[in-house]
């Protein structure tokens, strides 16, 4: 038996009430119910990262997240990252470094990179952090490891890592962002 639920999501700053089937993923709720198509569906199984959004401030795979479990939640997609008409430093760095080709994985890469930089800044270690009790460095290996959940078949990786490093350094300078 099907069960529908009425929830409200705050999507890129706008409250969006909607009715979801309890089977509906956050990704399908955004794309198919709300027409918010910035997050992409690449695999629907949490294997590619194209659907990555920031949910309540943390990066999540929206295809593995049930919408009904996150009523009242705050969702930021790549389309909602900019401010005052300016792209987020991560987005600007992706443009400057040509860190994409087809663009399909890009919104997920961008959201993931924002999450990665937050995680490093917060001192959370990764599998390649030498001293898990210390502060992780913002370097190639940390970024490459943490971005490895976001596949890019155009294989822009050699541009993505420098882009994320550029953005990380800029964010460290511009605390106001």
């Amino acid at each position, binding site marked *: 038996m*099907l069960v529908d639920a009425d929830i409200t999501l705050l999507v890129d700053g706008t409250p969006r009430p909607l009715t979801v*089937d309890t*089977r*509906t993923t956050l990704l*399908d709720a955004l*794309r*198919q119910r709300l*027409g918010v*198509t*910035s*997050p*992409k*569906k*690449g*695999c*629907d*199984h949490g*294997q*590619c990262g*194209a659907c990555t959004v920031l949910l309540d401030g943390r990066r999540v795979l929206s295809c593995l997240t049930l919408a009904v479990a996150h009523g009242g939640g705050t969702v930021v*997609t*790549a*389309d909602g*990252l*900019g401010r005052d008409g300016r*792209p987020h430093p991560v*987005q600007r760095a*992706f*443009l*400057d470094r*040509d860190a*994409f*080709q*087809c*663009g*399909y*994985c*890009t*919104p997920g890469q*961008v959201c993931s990179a924002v999450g990665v930089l937050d995680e490093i800044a917060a001192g959370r270690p990764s599998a390649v952090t030498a001293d898990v009790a210390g502060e992780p460095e913002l370097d190639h*290996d940390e*970024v*490459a*490891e943490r*971005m*490895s*959940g*976001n*596949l*890019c*078949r*155009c*294989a*822009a*990786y*050699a*541009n*993505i*890592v420098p882009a994320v490093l550029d953005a990380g350094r800029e964010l460290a300078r511009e605390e106001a962002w």
Partner: protein
Amino acid sequence: MAQVLEPRAMGRDLVRRDGPDKIRGTAGYADETPVVAPLYAFLVQATIARGRVLDMDLTDAELGEGVLRVITAATAERLASTEDAELAALQSAEIAFRGQVIGLVLAETSEAARRAGELVRVDYEQDPHDVTLAADRDDLYAPDTVNPAYATDTYDGDVDAALAGADVVVDQTYSTAMYHNNPLEPHATTALWDPAGPGFLTLWDSTQGVHPTRSAVQKVLGLDEQQVRVVCPYVGGGFGAKGRPHVHVVLAAMAARAVPGRPVKLALTRQQMFSLAGYRTPTIQRMRLGADRDGHLQAIAIDVVEQTSRIKEFAEQTGLPTRMMYAAPNRRTTHRLAALDVPVPSWMRAPGECPGMFGPEVAMDELAEALDIDPVQLRIRNEPDIDPETGKPFSSRNLVACLREGAERFGWAGRDPRPAERLEGGWLVGTGVASSIYPTYRRAESTAIIRYDMGRYTAAIGAADLGTGAWTVLPQIAADALSVPVEDVDVLIGDTAHPYATVAGGSSGTATWGSALVEAARAFRDKFGTDPDDGDAIAGSAGPSDAAQRYTMAAFGAQFAEARVNADTGELRVPRLLGVFAAGRIINPRTARSQLIGGMTMGLSMALHEQSVLDPRFGHVVNHDLAEYHITACADVGDVQAHWIDEEDPHVNAMGSKGIGEIGIVGTAAAVSNAVYNATGVRVRDLPITLDKLLSALPD
């Protein structure tokens, strides 16, 4: 000789015009077409590899809430043409491969459609199937031609006699795996059948060519050209998988025709892409090289065995690069196919050249070792003066320059050729090299219209941007053809409402569409001069290339790899890849570099990770998702560099440009395998190079 444009905008490092939309995710892909109240389609697939459907029980499926209908072979419309068996959707009960579409559910939501698909019960009559490729099968056959229209076999001189008389012979068999293109955007079509509208059928389809897709669909459905419009402004990656329409496009159209006025969305799942969207055949390559003591090749032979499907032939031209890479008086290339109960193979990035430069370029490394000649020098020593296959001159051929510059940049000089001699911190270290080649194609026909309005020029052509940069590069060409600033030029692409454009395939897009833009610009200036009026517009078409009759035209490259293999665990890392390419004029260095490093990294992926594992018992790819079909991820990639030499080629086209979309993947896997050999002394002739192939043979 073409009159080559003076480069002003061409050659400039311009940021992608579609970049601002792509970093926000607002560039609209096929499944994102904003239509009102779409229905969602879900495909039901056969779970046997050969036989027929006896009965389908749709009772439970059709009872589902929101389910509109289930279309099967029993209820589907009869198609006007079933000549292309891959596209003959739901026309018979016969099953030719596991995963073949046997039904389509239409429902109000994607969840309801998918659930209903799972509730369809099918009775089959199952026949024995055969999905196993082997070089010793007794039913191998020679196709009439290999893709797209090359001779199946070529012979020159007497290979056997030359091998018998050669000082050194390499005779080895190599294999490449079955590969799936796996663009990140799954194949998707949004379809609307609207008898009341301006066109009857509109397909928003993720395709490498809107016009070729229209041609295929109109034929299958029995429609006129004017009754079908195909729209595709952005493609989320193709790599050949979206070069030819696959069956889902026809199914989306059939579904739309079943519900006139209602848009239908059909997106393949990632799993479905492993049986419905084409793939690269596995190949078995027997290579024989014979050389004299000085390393001059006396004989080159490649005998290729590969597969196709029982219902539709695709013959990958794996022997092609061997026909023109190196000089040798005695030559032989052959292709044999096994027609199996498997999904239909098709194009995947550099069909022919990509697998066909694995065996030969590893064999060259083996020959270099046997002769104790440096692998770079061996290749230079066998540089031909003319195309050995046709006897024609090359319009330009700078393989030697690529090898030399690559060796310099990579730090090849002083390389220790002895295998398994360098241990650094528990890691065995080695380097390898391989050559790259990709033919320079220009397709026979494309047309562009250039229009002037209020100080701006707009060029319209039904071209496709798969991430290749067409949105950015075509304005650069048009600007130079018109002698105006690139900032004053807009382009419109990705719609059959624009003039006819050929497929983005064979690395021919920019050359073909650019040639059409140049012709349109010349016609525009001839007719309207340099001070046109608003609304002035004219079309121009690219014709066949005369120079192709006189010259062999191809891009070349050299790729260098460093491999590090953990001496205890066999773990393999490739911290460095460096390629140098000779591909004519580079029109936009930014987008070009991305294409080249992308191709090289996909080649690394082929070397280390990719392999579709076909289960002989059931006939399906068992690792049919991105968790198990491994492609390179961010942490697999280290320093990847692409460089190019300044190459002037006045013969290829008015831009002087050769294709760059595919050459990057050609030769990479061989360079990596050769580096692994230098590191470990283990010669891996069967891709991918996984640690199980290294571990037992590593030195103590």
